[in-house]
């Protein structure tokens, strides 16, 4: 990079606001334009100077950093320089580097993260197509996006910039001018780079046709066995009534299955068309059984393939079997549970029947016979019917007798002829039982007394 190529740069800061950096060079082309710019003795390494803060802090020329390296990437020069540790955003810099910093409202950039991208085009007569960004790790991305945005606007801005620059070259760039330029929208923050014209791709149609005409060989079909055809009809999917492919025949390359089926059907269509042609020319497609010849894949390889296919099938079968077994087990469990429940129900029914008999509600012993005569449901219903048939129970009857039908029966005759002849309250069992249960039935439990138990214990 030679000295003449380092122009006067008008640089603008990143999104929060504009800022300008001037790269002082003693280059002959520019020096007369800035009579009172401080010239530095050497071009390289360069102390970057900042000439005024756009946000109105009022800072003037000041050193802000040191150059590190330069590189060129696709028509953009990139200069790396490190801002001084006391420098935050350029707007933060005050009049001289030795004075303590006067901070702006915005926060200061940490020194470790402060480095800047500095770009300018190779054309020295168009100096101001560059922008300065103070980039820290967080804001690196948006700045680059801005660069892309700026690229389109680059073309339009060029004219205005040119006009602006010619003025500026004559006069020293001041903060106010920059502010005005920014306000009017001519200068935008971010990197402004020259963009190449879009690359033109060669498409020499005539040349290709000529070449094809020269190159083409006219041979009979038998020599080349070529067919051009779209794929055959998709019989399966039509039969299933699926959605047909797009009519233009464009296959979606990402849908693997559809794509492969497309190729398959294309091959099929070719084969269907070609077979009659081949037979016409006397070329066979089927080889006889005893025609032994070398194959493209060795027999060993085909054995491997066969084994793989068989193993795949085995795995499938095994998994099917396992699934079935699991299902069966689940089913078996269900059946088992049902059987247990049924048994429990039967037991319950039996117990209730026995209790009924014990309480004297029924004197039938049919529940002992089990399921033969009555299935579980019928016996339950039978007992219900019997209960219903009996009508209200004894308690109800007594109360009806005492209080029902108009109240007390006191003062009425009793021991009349009718009441004497009434034997409905006769209980044969009770009457005939000799020394049966007394009251509640005597001892409900047959447990012997303490003395008897002691005797039993002593004996055993």
């Amino acid at each position, binding site marked *: 990079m030679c000295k003449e190529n380092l122009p006067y740069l008008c640089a603008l800061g990143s999104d929060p606001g504009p800022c300008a950096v001037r790269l002082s060079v003693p280059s002959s082309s520019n020096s007369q334009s800035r009579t009172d710019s401080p010239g530095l003795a050497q071009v390289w390494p360069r102390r970057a100077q900042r000439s005024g803060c756009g946000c109105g802090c009022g800072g003037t020329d000041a050193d802000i950093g040191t150059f590190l390296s330069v590189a060129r990437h696709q028509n953009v020069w990139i200069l*790396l320089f490190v801002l001084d540790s006391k420098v935050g955003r350029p707007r933060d810099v005050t009049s001289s580097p030795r004075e303590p910093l006067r901070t702006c409202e915005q926060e200061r950039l940490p020194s*470790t993260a402060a480095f800047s991208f500095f770009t300018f085009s190779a054309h020295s007569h168009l100096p101001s197509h560059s922008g300065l960004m103070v980039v820290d790790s967080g804001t690196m991305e948006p700045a680059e996006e801005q660069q892309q945005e700026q690229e389109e606007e680059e073309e339009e801005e060029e004219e205005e910039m040119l006009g602006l620059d010619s003025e500026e070259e004559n006069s020293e760039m001041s903060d106010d001018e920059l502010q005005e330029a920014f306000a009017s929208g001519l200068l935008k923050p971010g990197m402004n780079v020259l963009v190449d014209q879009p690359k033109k791709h*060669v498409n020499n149609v005539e040349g290709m046709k000529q*070449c094809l005409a020269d190159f083409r060989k006219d041979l009979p079909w038998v020599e080349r066995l070529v067919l051009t055809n779209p794929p055959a009809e998709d019989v399966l999917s039509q039969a299933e009534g699926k959605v047909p492919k797009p009519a233009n025949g464009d296959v979606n390359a990402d849908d693997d299955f559809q794509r492969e089926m497309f190729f398959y059907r294309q091959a*099929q269509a070719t084969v269907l068309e*070609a077979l009659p042609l081949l037979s016409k020319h006397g070329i066979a497609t089927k*080889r*006889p059984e005893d025609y032994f010849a070398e194959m493209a894949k060795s027999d060993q390889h085909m054995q491997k393939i066969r084994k793989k296919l068989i193993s795949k099938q085995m795995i499938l079968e095994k998994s099917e079997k396992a699934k079935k077994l699991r299902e069966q087990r689940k089913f078996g469990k269900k059946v088992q549970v049902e059987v247990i429940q049924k048994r429990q129900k039967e037991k319950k029914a039996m117990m209730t029947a026995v209790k009924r008999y014990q309480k004297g509600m029924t004197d039938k012993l049919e529940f002992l016979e089990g399921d033969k005569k009555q299935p579980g449901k019928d016996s339950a219903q039978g007992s219900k019917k019997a209960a219903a048939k009996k009508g209200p129970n004894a308690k109800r009857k007594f109360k009806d007798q005492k209080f029902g039908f108009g109240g007390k029966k006191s003062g009425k005759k009793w021991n009349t002829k009718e009441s004497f002849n009434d034997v409905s309250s006769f209980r044969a069992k009770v009457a005939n039982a000799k020394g049966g249960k007394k009251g509640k039935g005597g001892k409900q439990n047959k447990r012997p007394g303490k003395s008897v138990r002691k005797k039993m214990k002593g004996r055993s």
Partner: protein
Amino acid sequence: MSAFKRKRGGQGAVGKKAKKAKVVADRDGAPSETEQGTKNEVTVPAPVSSGKWTNKERVLIFSSRGINFRTRHLMQDLRTMMPHSKADTKMDRKDKLFVVNEVCEIKNCNKCLFFEAKKKQDLYMWIANSPHGPSAKFLVQNIHTLAELKMTGNCLKGSRPLLSFDPKFDKEPQFALLKELFIQTFSTPHYHPKSQPFVDHVYTFTIADNRIWFRNYQIIEEDASLVEIGPRFVLNLIKVFQGSFGGPTLYENPDFKSPNMVKPSSCLLKLYAWYFCK
């Protein structure tokens, strides 16, 4: 039988068949019967001998240094499938590309399939008509070789293929040119001495997603049931040249993105590296 002199365009194939029959004979001990059997069967086509091999196409298939195993297998598969092909040793990358033309001339080949591996990742394929004709450069992707166990088909070694093209090949001039190149390169000439007289497989070339997809199917039944044999690959056209391995560019694919462009430039990488190391 062994006394048969094997001539090109003469009794060559009959001799070959006889040789095979002889091998069978060693096992079975009935040579004459088998031979007579093949002669008596109507379905056996006329042997290769009864025609003259006129369409003299020879394809040179070779590669540069630095290819990986998949590419090597692909090359071998193509040589297996194409009996009219010849092999050559690897070319040093120091030599310029037009040297390939000279190699072709030495080998007396008029077509060339040259595989070039860059950075041990990208595979480029050149297909060229050797002395004067057009050539094209492709980026090859999605390579599957014959040896993959999912490709269950098989075919005779050296049997002639059917070629099947997408109708899209006729619509644009660059594809029409490529179609002619493919036809002349991949189709086995009639009555080639190493070819088998049956047609039992079909190559398909299809255009999808602006790329050319190649598939190879075996014809099992007369009702066109097919099984894939392999190999299979995808070609992404880069450029078509008027000359062989050089010459003016006739066509450049605008949709082609070089694999290098996907990677960031070394300059930017250095900057980023410097920043993060700091």
